[in-house]
């Protein structure tokens, strides 16, 4: 793989700067959410900056190697992620009632996040190489469905409902774009609603409580319902222009749980107001639009599917996270792409964007 000057000429600066912009917003949000007074350095901000550096290195790596090599090595990535995932119940550590992390010195990894990349690669590879004339029916996508079901099951057991749901949506996105028949989509929907009671029965009581309190916030205005109400109050109290950076009272008075991770959006909404949040949505919209442009410009199917998959990852996590921040979706613990505190999710998102950069830049090499 020799160096090609065209890689620099055609580098996708738009995608890169959109990413950098969102990362900066995230660091400001975490700074505010963990602010303890002037002169007090929040360890979360420092750690997040370290993770951004790690993420940039990962992004460079995902960009540097021709993405078609990733297609060849797809199963290896998938197997590696699966291996880590299997390690979790064996050597993983607990936190907040779930077993999700593997400790590596000062940092801990959440293998479920890396599975998103592994899954993106194997499904894209599968639908790229196997194109039935009649389009994809249920039988044709049985194998990729297994690719999803295995890790999603492991992740549900951790328990981590949010990531498992994200994997399922990623699978749906990729098969839909590659030509899943609409009738099969409907069948999948039916199967999904068939699995639902089963999943429900295996949810932890706290997860069930979150969902019931979302459907009926009045039943439980204290436990899970309290957080939903407080999140809404926090977002709404920002009004048009916001209360100003570091001046959010809901934030300062600790009304929000997980405010540097799952609820960083609410912190930003309180301090930056409607105007700021529309700006943020526009920034995300631009990122998604760029990813779709990359998909449409790709010269071959695998590249298109990678770009679509990355867009799907950003989009689904975005709406699940913001949805729970503004009280239209239940609280299921999905990080806001590039903004929430959390090393594994940030690194995963940046690796994914590195792949998209890769596709975008290499379209001229065909």
């Amino acid at each position, binding site marked *: 793989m020799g160096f090609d000057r065209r890689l620099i000429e055609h580098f996708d600066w738009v995608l890169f700067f959109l990413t950098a912009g969102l990362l900066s917003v995230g660091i400001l949000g975490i700074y505010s959410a963990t602010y303890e007074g002037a002169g007090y350095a929040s360890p979360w901000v420092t750690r997040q900056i370290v993770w951004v550096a790690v993420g940039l290195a990962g992004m460079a790596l995902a960009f540097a190697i021709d993405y078609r090599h990733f297609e060849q090595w797809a199963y290896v990535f998938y197997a590696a992620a699966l291996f880590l995932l299997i390690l979790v119940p064996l050597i993983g550590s607990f936190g907040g009632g779930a077993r999700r992390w593997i400790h590596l010195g000062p940092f801990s990894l959440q293998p479920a996040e890396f599975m998103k990349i592994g899954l993106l690669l194997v499904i894209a590879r599968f639908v790229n190489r196997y194109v039935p004339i009649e389009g994809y029916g249920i039988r044709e996508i049985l194998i990729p469905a297994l690719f999803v079901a295995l890790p999603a099951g492991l992740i549900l057991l951790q328990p981590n409902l949010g990531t498992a749901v994200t994997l399922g949506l990623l699978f749906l996105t990729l098969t839909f*774009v590659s*030509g899943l028949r609409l009738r099969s989509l409907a069948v999948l929907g039916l199967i999904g609603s068939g699995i639902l009671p089963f999943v429900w029965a295996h949810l932890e009581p706290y997860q069930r409580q979150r969902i019931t309190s979302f459907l009926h916030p009045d039943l439980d*205005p204290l436990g899970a319902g309290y957080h939903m109400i407080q999140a809404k109050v926090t977002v709404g109290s920002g009004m048009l222009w916001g209360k100003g950076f570091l001046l959010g009272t809901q934030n300062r008075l600790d009304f929000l749980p997980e405010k540097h991770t799952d609820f960083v959006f609410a912190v930003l909404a309180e301090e930056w107001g409607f105007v700021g949040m529309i700006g943020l*949505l526009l920034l995300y919209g631009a990122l*998604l639009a760029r990813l779709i442009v990359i998909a449409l410009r790709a010269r071959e199917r695998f590249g*298109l599917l990678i770009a*679509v998959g990355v867009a799907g990852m950003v989009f689904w996590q975005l709406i699940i996270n913001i949805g729970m921040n503004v009280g239209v979706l239940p609280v299921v613990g999905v990080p806001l792409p590039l903004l929430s505190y959390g090393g594994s999710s940030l690194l995963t998102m940046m690796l994914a964007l590195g792949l998209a950069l890769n596709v975008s830049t290499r379209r001229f090499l065909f």
Partner: protein
Amino acid sequence: MNETPEVFTSQETLAACYRRVGVMSLIILLVLCVLGFRLWQLQIVDGSRLRTLSEKNRLRLRRLPPMRGLMHDRTGRVVVANRPSFDVVIVPADVQEMSLLLHKLARYVPDVKDLGNGNLPRNLRRPAYEDIVVARDVSRQTLVAIEAHQMDLPGVRIDVSSKRYYPAESVAAHLLGHVGEVNNTEMELFSGYRLGDLTGKVGLEKAWEEALRGHSGGQQVEIDASGRTLRVLDEVRAQPGRNLILTLDLELQEEAERALAEVEGALVVLSVHTGEVLVMVNRPAFNPNLFARGIRRSEWRQLLENPLHPLTNRVIQGQYPPGSTFKPIMAAAALEEGVITPETQFRCQGGLPFGGRVFRCWKRSGHGRVDLKQALAQSCDVYFYQIGQLLGIEKIAEYARRFGLGRDMHIALGHAAAGIIPDAAWKKDRFGIPWYAGETLSVVIGQGYVTATPLQMAVAIAAIANGGTVYRPAFVTQVLGADNTPIQTYPPEIVTQVDIRAEHLQTVREGMWEVVHGKAGTGRKARLMDIEVAGKTGTAQVISGARGSAADAPRRYRDHAWFVAFAPASDPEVVVVCLIEHSGKGGGKVAAPVVRAVLEAYFRITQHSSEESHGIRQATHRAF
């Protein structure tokens, strides 16, 4: 799987995707618009209302911990209760001038003085929004003083919480157990706990945690600038834990503790026909109230380092050689196996030569010719050596296990020791060497490898007394709701039947009657005025071959003294088992009087209560 990328040209397959990507783009656009609309709704339409909520009002979420369930003894007396405890709390967000407040507060709360002079904990120095407890479990005077000056102390709040209270202090401490703050392991294993929550640590408090703990509720409250609650916006009531009715008889327990006050040891009283544990004494004991109020490091170390192990529940965890109290079981086994009849006699000359050495009887001068009942009454070792040879180790072990020895009883009081009933396979497994015939002679008199807990001995003796039923020892008869409506009742639970003919058990009971009432009985000190008692003495050697390592030997080498008994002898109601650790004296001397005192108290209490309830005085029990 067909890998057929050649079927389509690259451009064709791409084109097929474009329409779907277009649909996807539309969905994304639509959803982003919905999110934007929702933001407009919250921040613009509802904005000023929510802003008011966030700024003018101060909403707080308060957890309402559940009231832990109570425990009553079998007569309804409260043995485990809750008492109110008052903590002084500072709400930093509502304090205008922290140092001034601390200065004022120090006048009423002595503990706060140290905080004033630059000794502020870190969390008080930097802006914090969490409540800080500055004094725990303060006295009534302090409480009154703070309540009276509430207006002068903005940001100071009194929190009422509930603390566990054991009114009988150290009485039955090992049975009841105690609570403590939940640790990390427990939080991971069981859901619904938070840091600082209490959980049962040992005893019934731990074994019945699920029933006792209840579920916490919460309050959403609005408070004013000085931390006072303006109104409760919403409340979910805590569900109190369930109450337990124990098998324990507190009055009898107190009597038994008194009878055992001066020594180290264990005593258990079991109801013969139900397996209910009426009394469980362990000496030395500890005061569970120390744990309830939060034990100090020095107190904890004292308990741990005490060589007499006050924290150990000897009744269920102490494993001792049963000594001669094992003989009634062996007698029943020999009769059932037909190796002897009640009339069979052996001559005791003070010892039995076997395998090149002499196995001694405790009575060096010998008992002369004795039959089975006299062998029990006088605890003749030689008679039982003969039985041991006739039975063999495998039969000995089989019968002992039928009586519940050497196995885990799975009692509802946490982990109990299983004791050891050895046989050839056990020894091969444990030490890798075969069984020696001489060891059988040690086992048959309850020495050698044999160990049992006092509770196991009580269960076995109860089986002899009740005609052969082995009951699982029970501690709780009923679980009640917080309003005392019965939720669950636990009937007696039979573990097994010993499967020995009634007349054989009757012979053994008659032998045990001789122990107490016979002319040469070793347990004559257990006699009562008007009720006949059957029993068996035991003296368990701690080091082999040193029989009589008496009172002058170092404590840890002295023999243990046992006495097991049931009464009334003809129609047994209760079993009492007493073990006195390292007494250096025989069971008949030191343990029998203790059992006597407990039996006396038992009949006094039950007769008293039956007079009260029925007005009928039962006729004096007569034996046979």
